[in-house]
């Protein structure tokens, strides 16, 4: 995983503001007006990001590999 870069997006229309991601991965997500938003659109690969995406109850967090565009979360 080292050296990889990931793209992180939050679909704010789908987000229900559960606070899962901002609470469990505060270095990567924040709540703005009750909905989540990624702090950075592109990040170094980190389990915390994947964990937050997998924990999202409405799968509003999309994580893809930079370059290949391969979708890492949510599972398809």
């Amino acid at each position, binding site marked *: 995983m080292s050296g990889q870069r990931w793209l992180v997006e939050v679909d704010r229309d789908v987000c229900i503001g*559960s606070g*899962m991601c*901002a*609470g*469990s991965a*505060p270095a990567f997500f924040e709540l703005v007006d009750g909905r989540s938003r990624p702090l950075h659109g592109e990040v170094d690969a980190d389990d915390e990001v994947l*964990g937050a995406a*997998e*924990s999202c*109850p409405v799968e509003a967090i999309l994580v893809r590999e930079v370059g290949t565009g391969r979708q890492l979360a949510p599972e398809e």
Partner: protein
Amino acid sequence: MTENATADDQPLPYPFGNGRQIELERRYAELREAPGLARVQLPYGRDCWLATRYEDAKIVLGDPRFSRAAAVGPDVPRPNPEQPGEGGILMLDPPEHTRIRGVASRAFTARRVERMREHTREIVERLVDEMVERGAPADLVEHVALPLPVMVISEMLGVPYSDRDDFQRWSNAFLSTSLLPPETVIEYGKALRDYMTGLVEQRRAAPTDDLLSAMLRASDEEERITQDELVNLAIAILVAGHETTATQLPNFVYVLDRERDQWDLLLERPDLVPRAVEELVRWVPLGVSSAFPRYAREDVEVGGVLVRAGEPVLASVASANRDRRVFADPDRLDILREDNPHIGFGHGPHHCLGAQLARMELQEGLRALLRKVPTLRVAVGEDELDWKDGMFVRGFRTLPVTW
């Protein structure tokens, strides 16, 4: 602005009522309008802060400066003698919490739950049909509200429904609704743990496509969690997976019986059921007492009070859901309410794992009742209602209904 503003006052005895009423205790409304945070004393443990406003509650529940893992020891404020959630997922902070919960969370996403809707509808329609065949009056808890979530969660997890009498009884050890003697709590807790360990061993020998088998793969093959963590997580899912829905559906029926215009509106417009469920989750104060205090890891300002590092804070979601700063006419049940960002399923890392499943079950439960028994009424008067004991959830042991 400081702790001293209220630290000299005697803490308020908490909870504010015994939970034998559906109305939220009036004291919360006073506290929401008072500056700072309240100081309360629960039956066990030290005194602590209580956040009653929406924004304050969300900070306590969602801000990583607050910890659940730090809530250990005899001083932890709690409504029961035993430590609630001991050894369970609710005692963990990220990243351990994320690692363990992640093993199950994929099974509870909105997308996966939607695939279970059709089957859940069949289950609940059959249950309602059977209740109607037996004739009125009937106990809504026994015939519909309890079997519905127990069937759904046991099938999903892979726990034989035929074992329900045993696992429902043992579950009480983790809910403390029935004020069991301490030795019984220990006995039931061990029985449920042994039972679940046995099921895990069965799946190891012969895997199936249920959640228990999927969780076991995460444990044995991916080494994401230990077997102890797996067993605890499976127990949490089984226990939390039925008690709350089983209590809320009768609560909803009771509330809609009193607010008959809202029931009639749903009969006319069943498309409003999802919105009604959100409003009922907001309005019904399910917990008798706020529990599971969060401990400040560092000094944090909440609601104009400086909470010192190491101090516990409780957040009342029931009170937050009545905050006029967020909800117009907050004490009114209004199933037409559109903007409804309630935190009835909690907030932050411990936001209810089964929230989407609970929503779906409650929607299908309500829909089946509206469609099949439109004349449904509570069959007993206010003074004959059979309220649950204990300090956990507010609701009915039995709810006789007629139609």
